[in-house]
């Protein structure tokens, strides 16, 4: 009889639990209507030392909860890459996808493992020169972003579409049975409303490619590309939890075929601890029971064998990338992208970019769906950072959730009092499209929805003549630039569809000294 409580099974259960924890926290990262959020999925990023290091290097600041990431560091120094093998939810997903393929896949050239170290060197060196690009490839940031912007909206869309069709067609009165199921799903795993994201397809396809690579080779991403894996690999080199192979080894090679990493378990002496995910598959499978994991004197670590020239090349690339990404007119006050409206509490743009790791949590939690991932609006440096697109959703006046979930403080956590004072832009009226201005028809929607206690939109009562020469009284809206905070609800709700008759631009945002319209009072 096969043993059920093998290390492999314990590991699988642990992985499953962490994946469930991740999904649970992810789903909880949503407003329930209160001012404070319960458990944001940020917790996973808090444990991510790569995010901590790059934030320290790039922004000279500590992430919100960087102490937690030290736990991961200590665990890795002691026990090796247990995080990769037992905890990381992206690793688990890669693991699962890899298992879909029955036939043993081809192994990629062994030396490919070095790529992730070059990526790590590139990212960290560019961090030293203040570029925060780590989030693009950090596995947790990547996972949360992909789930927020693509996977979860897709899941919701599919489930809703199914129940909506059943509800509408109602074959044999079956909706009576499906609706209660739908209600349960709505109160558990579905989002409050369907979200839509620009780039949902693009980011989703990238995510699919990453998972799909596991079909080429199990845990392709973890072995060859993951920069967090590389960092933990470096840290794991003198782990006290180590592996030994006894005399009984017949060099049958069984262990090599089940290795989750790229650790060459069959080569005994040249076993690479930095590539070992501590999955203990080699221990389980060994027919001679010759493999043993245990605590002992740290053995001399096998070299990473990266090649000095290659490391230098990666470092130089990291140096060069910084000015390359920054020679863009977007950094100039006069040629900023006017649509780049950042969430309230965002730091000044340069500081913001040094911290934002593009995890997309702010987009997930934004209750109006207005926060969207950028593409090139903030330059390549700012790809997938949050931008408010008021035609999709506005910034809710009394909501501060984006600042609550931001792991690096790129978006500050604001109190309600602070939030009410932060301008993220200014609204302007397009008099050529506005109903009272251009067409002498009554409309007050922008004023009605304006949330500032004293409304930033005010009316001028005017009498205009219609085509027949009759006098018509209309109220024409104006924006009070002192009071307007740029929340964008006027633009969201403006009944002039397509190009709105009132729109918000980042001009006047309080985080910037340059991007101003009104004469300063100081």
């Amino acid at each position, binding site marked *: 009889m096969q043993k059920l409580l093998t290390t492999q099974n314990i590991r699988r259960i642990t992985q499953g639990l962490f994946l469930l924890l991740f999904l649970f926290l992810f789903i909880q990262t949503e407003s329930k209507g209160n001012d404070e959020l319960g458990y944001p999925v940020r917790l996973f990023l808090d444990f991510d030392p790569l995010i901590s290091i790059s934030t320290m290097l790039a922004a000279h600041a500590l992430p919100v909860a960087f102490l937690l990431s030290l736990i991961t560091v200590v665990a890795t120094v002691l026990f090796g890459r247990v995080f990769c093998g037992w905890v990381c939810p992206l690793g688990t997903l890669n693991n699962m996808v890899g298992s879909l393929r029955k036939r043993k896949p081809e192994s990629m050239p062994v030396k490919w493992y070095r790529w992730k170290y070059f990526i790590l060197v590139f990212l960290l060196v560019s961090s030293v020169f203040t570029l925060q690009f780590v989030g693009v490839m950090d596995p947790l940031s990547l996972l949360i972003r992909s789930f927020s912007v693509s996977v979860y909206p897709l899941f919701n869309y599919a489930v809703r579409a199914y129940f909506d069709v059943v509800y509408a067609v109602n074959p044999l009165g079956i909706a009576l049975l499906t609706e209660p199921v739908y209600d349960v799903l709505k109160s558990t795993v579905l989002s409050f409303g369907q979200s839509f994201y620009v780039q949902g397809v693009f980011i989703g396809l990238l995510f699919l490619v990453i998972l799909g690579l596991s079909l080429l080779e199990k845990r392709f991403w973890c072995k060859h590309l993951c920069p967090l894996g590389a960092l933990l690999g470096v840290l794991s080199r003198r782990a006290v939890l180590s592996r030994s192979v006894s005399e009984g080894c017949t060099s049958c090679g069984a262990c090599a075929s089940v290795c989750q990493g790229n650790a060459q378990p069959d080569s005994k002496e040249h076993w690479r601890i930095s590539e070992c995910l501590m999955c203990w598959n080699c221990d389980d499978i060994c027919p001679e029971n010759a493999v043993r994991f245990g605590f002992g004197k740290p053995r001399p670590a096998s070299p990473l064998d990266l090649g000095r020239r290659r490391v230098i090349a990666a470092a130089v690339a990291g140096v060069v990338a910084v000015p390359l990404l920054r020679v863009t007119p977007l950094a100039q006050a006069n040629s900023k992208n006017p649509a780049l409206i950042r969430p309230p509490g965002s730091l000044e743009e340069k500081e913001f970019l040094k911290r934002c790791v593009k995890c997309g949590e702010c987009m997930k939690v934004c209750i109006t769906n207005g926060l969207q991932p950028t593409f090139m609006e903030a330059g390549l440096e700012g790809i997938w950072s949050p931008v408010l697109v008021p035609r999709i959703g506005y910034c809710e*006046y009394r*909501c501060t959730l984006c600042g609550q979930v931001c792991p690096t403080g790129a978006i500050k956590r604001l109190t309600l009092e602070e939030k009410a004072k932060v301008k993220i832009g200014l609204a302007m009226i397009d008099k050529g499209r506005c109903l009272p201005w251009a067409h002498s028809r009554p409309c*007050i929607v922008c004023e*009605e929805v304006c949330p500032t206690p004293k409304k930033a939109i005010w009316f001028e009562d005017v009498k205009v003549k219609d085509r027949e020469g009759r006098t018509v009284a209309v109220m024409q809206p104006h924006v009070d630039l002192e009071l307007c905070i740029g929340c964008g609800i006027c633009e969201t709700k403006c009944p002039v569809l397509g190009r709105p008759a009132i729109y918000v631009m980042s001009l006047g945002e309080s985080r910037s000294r340059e991007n101003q319209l009104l004469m300063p009072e100081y």
Partner: protein
Amino acid sequence: MDRRKFLRSAALAGIGLSFPGGLKQAAEAAQAGPDLAVVQGPSAAAITRAAIEALGGMKKFVSRGDIVVVKPNIAWDRVPEQAGDTNPEVVAEVVRLCIEAGAKKVKVFDRPVNDPRRCYVQSGIAEAARDKGADVIFMDDRKFKDMEIKGIALKTWPLYTEVIEADTVINVPIAKHHGLAKLTMSMKNWMGVMGGSRRMIHQKLDESIVDLARAIRPKLTVLDAVRILTDNGPQGGDLDDVKRLDTVIAGTDQVAIDSYGATLFGMKGSDLGYVRIGAETGFGVMDLAKLNIRKMKV
């Protein structure tokens, strides 16, 4: 109220047939008690109770086993002190009285302008109404159906089927300032059961408000004037714009209620376009002198 005219328009609206009994009851209620009950006092729940009592009690409007819809104004992400939404204690008391009168189910909902989750929680209405036994639900997009309204401005519009299908509908608005309508009270509260792009109706707002109120026809309306919002409405936010009146006005004629409500702001019913149109088209009575108004303090 011209009964034949009403029946015809209700039948045209395709909804009157669903509660012919309710109509009869409402007509009886109007004959028996005062037209309007205006009650003032420090306890929002007590004045709500007293106002409904003065009209003949909730049993007049709610029969045993009824499915009741209580429609407050939950349009904004505001707290009760800001008077952007109906007072939660008023809503809760109406719910409690419905259940006491034997209602099988009391549903409370609105289609907010701000995020529904925040509006429901921050207004205090969700918790207060749930405590008294209501089903506080978020509106379901699939349950808006095109209805023939055949009004002055609105011909057809998607309305919320649960309102149309309910045995009893109770309107529980709050009295507030509004930029275009000047004031929003009971008739305008029905914008909350409109689907589709309701922002368009501001182009013919007064007419649309009358059309809507006519199509819905609640059996009872309880206007919350515990706190009224005198400026920067309908959303408010500045406590200086809030005036505490500790008053509730109950009645069955929405035109009459809104006409009376105008006086709370120092206006007359005739200052409000929709009240004027409502009276002119025979939907209700604007002239307060023609109404039997009972004022009380509790």
